């Protein structure tokens, strides 16, 4: 795998350009360019190297649980709690590489091939750490020592590493499961449910449903309820009985008796409806609304509600304007006394038409006179309607001349008859 670059580009890092007014911080760039290739390989291992003293975090699995030799620090896969202390160490140790560490690094460098898996995980962190990587001090290992290193590394086989990893993972899973179980038990003990988001309302405070607090009182309460139920049932039965009796009674009566009873009932109804009073002269019509009321109202309330006010707005309002003087008999009392008020009452009162009142009023002086003495017809007689005596014969057809073809009116001349 090619060495990871922190800048994610294949371009060579250029020297920083001059920008007027900006301070130059250009020294690292040139160094990085030169040592880039050599550093990248060792960088991954260096990141792991200063981790030798493990931090004592409580979330971290304890020493005995992890059956892992902590001295093999570089082999460990990354775990979240470790990343923070790692970075801290990095900051502290930046630029300082002791002789012992550098020898470790060399050992680690030889095993880079086998730890492909590990290093891939560590790269995530090493990519962060690369700008802060400590500077290497190249140490010289003689040929003999180099050979020793080479033989020491391959003993740690891939299988072992895999087995180590698995064990670690299992431990972690067990520990997480343990934590979850403990949390569940704690929640159950506290009475919280995962699906209940209003557990802060403690139900026991509101209503207590423990039985046996006061057996006598409970028994008495139950007895009361049971009696109510029994009474309800009995009343229902009685109602039904009454209805049946009524039906029987009516069936046994004759038709006349039935009518008599019905009449009484209807008259009573009519009285209720009409006994409310007539509408006075020019009284405003008011209907109090057709809402069902039922029996819930008290008698007093019913009396008040059924008063015969007819929508009067104030106490002295007279429904019947017949008692007022003529001047005050107006519909809209606000117009009373205003200048220029015409006393227009209503259309009917102001109408001057006669509307059939005088149909039979036409009488003439000559009504009883004989036909001979009646006056002539007015209006000219309508043109000879009455023909008496010699004028009573009908007039014959007019003679036609032969040379006449119909009417000779074309010249505008009068038609002649000779």
């Amino acid at each position: 795998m090619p060495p990871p670059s922190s800048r994610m580009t294949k371009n060579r890092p250029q020297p920083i350009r001059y920008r007027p007014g900006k301070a130059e911080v250009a020294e690292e760039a040139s160094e990085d360019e030169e040592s880039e290739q050599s550093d990248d390989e060792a960088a991954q291992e260096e990141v792991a190297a200063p981790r030798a003293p493990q931090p004592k975090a409580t979330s971290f699995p304890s020493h005995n649980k992890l059956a892992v030799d902590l001295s093999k620090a570089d082999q460990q896969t990354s775990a979240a709690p470790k990343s923070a202390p790692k970075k801290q160490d990095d900051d502290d140790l930046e630029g300082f590489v002791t002789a012992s560490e550098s020898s470790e690094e060399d050992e680690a460098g030889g095993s880079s091939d086998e730890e492909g898996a590990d290093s891939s995980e560590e790269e995530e962190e090493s990519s962060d750490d690369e700008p802060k990587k400590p500077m290497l001090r190249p140490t010289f290992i003689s040929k003999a020592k180099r050979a020793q290193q080479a033989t020491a590394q391959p003993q740690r086989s891939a299988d072992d590493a895999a087995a180590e990893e698995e064990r670690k993972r299992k431990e972690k899973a067990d520990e997480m499961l343990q934590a979850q179980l403990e949390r569940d038990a704690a929640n159950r003990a506290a009475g919280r449910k995962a699906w209940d988001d209003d557990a802060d309302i403690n139900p026991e405070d509101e209503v207590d449903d423990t039985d046996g607090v006061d057996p006598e009182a409970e028994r008495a309460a139950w007895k009361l309820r049971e009696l109510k139920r029994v009474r309800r049932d009995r009343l229902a039965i009685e109602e039904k009985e009454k209805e049946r009796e009524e039906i029987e009674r009516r069936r046994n009566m004759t038709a006349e008796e039935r009518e008599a009873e019905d009449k009484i009932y209807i008259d009573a109804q009519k009285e209720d409806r009409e006994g409310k009073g007539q509408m006075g002269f020019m009284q405003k019509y008011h209907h109090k609304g057709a809402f069902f009321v039922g029996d819930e109202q008290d008698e007093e309330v019913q009396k008040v509600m059924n008063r015969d006010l007819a929508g009067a707005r104030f106490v002295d309002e007279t429904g019947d304007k017949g008692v007022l003087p003529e001047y005050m008999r107006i519909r809209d009392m606000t117009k009373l006394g205003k200048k220029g008020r015409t006393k227009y009452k209503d259309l009917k009162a102001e109408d001057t038409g006669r509307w059939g009142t005088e149909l039979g009023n036409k009488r003439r002086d000559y009504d009883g006179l004989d036909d001979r003495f009646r006056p002539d017809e007015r209006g000219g007689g309508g043109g000879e309607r009455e023909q008496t005596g010699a004028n009573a014969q009908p007039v014959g057809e007019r003679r036609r001349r032969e040379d006449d073809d119909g009417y000779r009116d074309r010249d505008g001349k009068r038609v002649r008859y000779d």
Partner: protein
Amino acid sequence: MVHHADAKKALDERGYTGTLLHGDNPLKLFEKAVRDRIVDSYYWKEQCFGLNAATLLDRATDLSFIGGTYGVAQKPTPFLCLAFKLLQLTPSKDIILFYLHQEEFKYLRALAAFYVRLAWEKDEEVYKTLEPYLADRRKLRRRVREGWALTYVDDFVDDLLVKGRVCATTLPKVNPRGFLEDEGKLEERVSALGEELEEMDEDSGGDESEGEVEEVGSAMVVGRGGGDGEVVSDEEMSGD
């Protein structure tokens, strides 16, 4: 019948091929709005997934209140969710009767009673099964729209038998008891008070019944009012 763990098919109205209650999908006994609330609730999603009769029993023993929906958003109670699950599973009569017979868990009993009222189609069976529990006087905590209320097992069973709507569901129509008695399918109810009731009746029509009335309510006011009226008029006349 194949049991699917999440029973999606039961909720889908088109392809339903399971048992029918009252001639339709059992889940339709709950209204659409209530069904939607139940299925969207956390309790249903977490706790009611893949239940069978035995695991439902476990859940029911953990119940601590009854109720329908509550709150502004009409949140369903666990009671309602479990009832919905029972409708989905439609367990056999034996299982439900077993639930009912459990003395130790009153909420389980309430749940089973609710299911009996909803699911059983023969009216006589409903009455016969539920009426013995009118003697169970234990307290039940009930979640109402705003807050809590106290009720009793016998009160709850009575509501199931008499009322039309309980716990956010409209109960299927059942003939009133009088009707069934007239038809001869049921005997008259023998109250759990039994002997005490007879004693009360024997004592007298007058004092005892009036005592009852005072204790209980105002329905019989007419009788008393008449009595009072007469007394007053006598006094007046004697005064004059």
